[in-house]
């Protein structure tokens, strides 16, 4: 990291650099600003031919009206419940698996690790159709018989929204890398004290990988909140819709009500922006590790 030049008067090149970067940053943020500005305009102003960039009359009431026009609050609650469940399940089970793969020698552990790596490479669009069928034909659920016939299985249930995406191979992989870096001495001392494997994992090792826990938790929450395709496929009823699907349905049904649509989009975007600003360090770490979204 270069720390030169900070006390000298800025060189022309440096000023040009700041100006360019500011312009780029502005271009990146403009769509977000346009979203917020639109959400605060009246429909009349949006539709008028000579519309100005900023609202002449700030219509803060749009937000309350948008929540009445569509159950965005319910959608957001659903998204939150699913994202929170995914986060907890993924952190707990993927860390257990990552720990076992990194620190416990057992027959086939290396083979299992390669299975997870292979799972990491399966594209979403190859597995999503059969996943849908498994949900649809889930035995003894939603009126299905033992062979998955007769009912609708897990379709339109919380099960379908939460269970299939609960544990990700990516999280297992990331946890394994973090557990691998821990010193053997920690583990040996605990073993001498007579601790069982699970307690070594839970009491000794896991507190040492807190950054990994935070990274996985934040990335899981973010991708779950932003997920669109899967909830779109497995839900039909309005009461189970997540925010992203809710927005797309609102777009289809009320395509011209841009002030409401942008208010809803702002509500859907804000939590992730805040989460990112708070946990930026962990997001950066996680993304730099994987490059996968």
């Amino acid at each position, binding site marked *: 990291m270069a720390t030169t030049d900070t006390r000298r008067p800025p060189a022309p090149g440096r000023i040009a650099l700041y100006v360019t970067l500011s312009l780029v940053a502005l271009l990146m943020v403009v769509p977000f600003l346009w979203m917020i500005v639109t959400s605060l305009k009246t429909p009349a102003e949006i539709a008028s031919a000579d519309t100005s960039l900023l609202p002449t009359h700030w219509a803060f009431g749009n937000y309350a009206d948008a929540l009445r026009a569509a159950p965005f609050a319910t959608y957001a609650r659903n998204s939150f419940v699913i994202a929170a469940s995914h986060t907890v399940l993924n952190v707990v089970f993927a860390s*257990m698996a990552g720990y076992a793969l990194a620190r416990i020698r057992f027959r086939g552990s290396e083979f299992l690790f390669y*299975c997870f790596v292979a799972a990491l490479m399966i594209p979403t669009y190859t597995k999503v159709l059969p996943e849908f069928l498994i949900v649809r034909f889930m035995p003894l659920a939603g009126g299905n018989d033992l062979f998955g016939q007769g009912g609708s299985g897990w379709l339109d249930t919380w099960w379908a929204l939460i269970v299939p995406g609960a544990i990700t191979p990516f999280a297992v992989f990331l946890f394994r890398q973090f557990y691998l870096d821990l010193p053997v001495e920690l583990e040996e001392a605990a073993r001498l004290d007579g601790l069982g494997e699970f307690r070594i994992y839970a009491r000794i090792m896991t507190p040492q990988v807190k950054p990994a826990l935070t990274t996985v938790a934040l990335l899981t929450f973010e991708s779950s909140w932003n997920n669109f395709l899967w909830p779109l496929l497995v839900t039909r009823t309005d009461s189970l819709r997540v925010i992203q699907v809710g927005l797309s349905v609102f777009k289809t049904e009320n395509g011209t009500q841009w002030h409401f649509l942008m208010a809803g989009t702002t509500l859907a975007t804000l939590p992730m922006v805040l989460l990112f600003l708070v946990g930026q360090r962990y997001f950066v770490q996680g993304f730099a590790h994987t490059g996968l979204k």
Partner: protein
Amino acid sequence: MVTPALLHAALWIGLPIIAAVYLAFTSYDVLTAPRFVGLANFRDMLDDAMFRKSIVNTVIYTFFTVPFGMLLGLLLALALDRGLRARGVFRTAIFLPQVTATVAIALVWLWIYNPRNGLFNTLLGLFGIEGPAWLASTSWAMPSVILVGIWQGIGMKMLIYLAALQNLPKDLYEAASVDGASPVRQFFSITLPLLKPATFFVLITSLISAFQSFDQIYILTDGGPAGSTTMMTYEIYKSAFREFRVGYACAQSLVLFVLLMGFTLVNRRIMGGTRGHD
């Protein structure tokens, strides 16, 4: 301890892959049992003009979003690697689209591209230019979608390059400066070669995600107008959930799978063992 994750992966990743391969050789509409049809689905694909078009579109979209995005990401990373003040602010702004839902982003761009009162045509109107119908125009729809793709993906590429730049050995540059190498020369003979692993990493992950673009197409264009922005993922979705040809959709998804696997293997081959552990 690995059991819960293992069973979960077996049921929701292992089984689906086996099922996808099997169903690709069947005719299946979900209501009646799958019927084995051999290679018929793959033969149908050859005659499916829309699917061929979707492959071409996916390649065009990838060809423009990935290299341009990488170049811009690299330039921004180089700019940010120079110990600027307010560097965090720039980085945050550039990365913001990456953490936002693609659906939300696409909705905002749908409004920006709105022919009557969208941001673009309003701005063009200030100069007396009447803008095109962007997403509704067969010639402008794809460039419009590509612009959104570049805009959203730039942050990730910048971030990976930035992380790589910060790990470069500083003493090499000092030695080069002593030898009188110009900054440009240093960039081409030191920085760029050392960034090779990062470049391949960005390339492969970007290719994989560009090939799986779906949300923005669903919201922005529905694959239209006249199929001018349809992608492979979108055709898979349509075959399965609008035409209920699940066997055919699985066959299409296998083609996508093979292409993506190809990228990964080529990457492995070229990269060799240069990427540290694993």
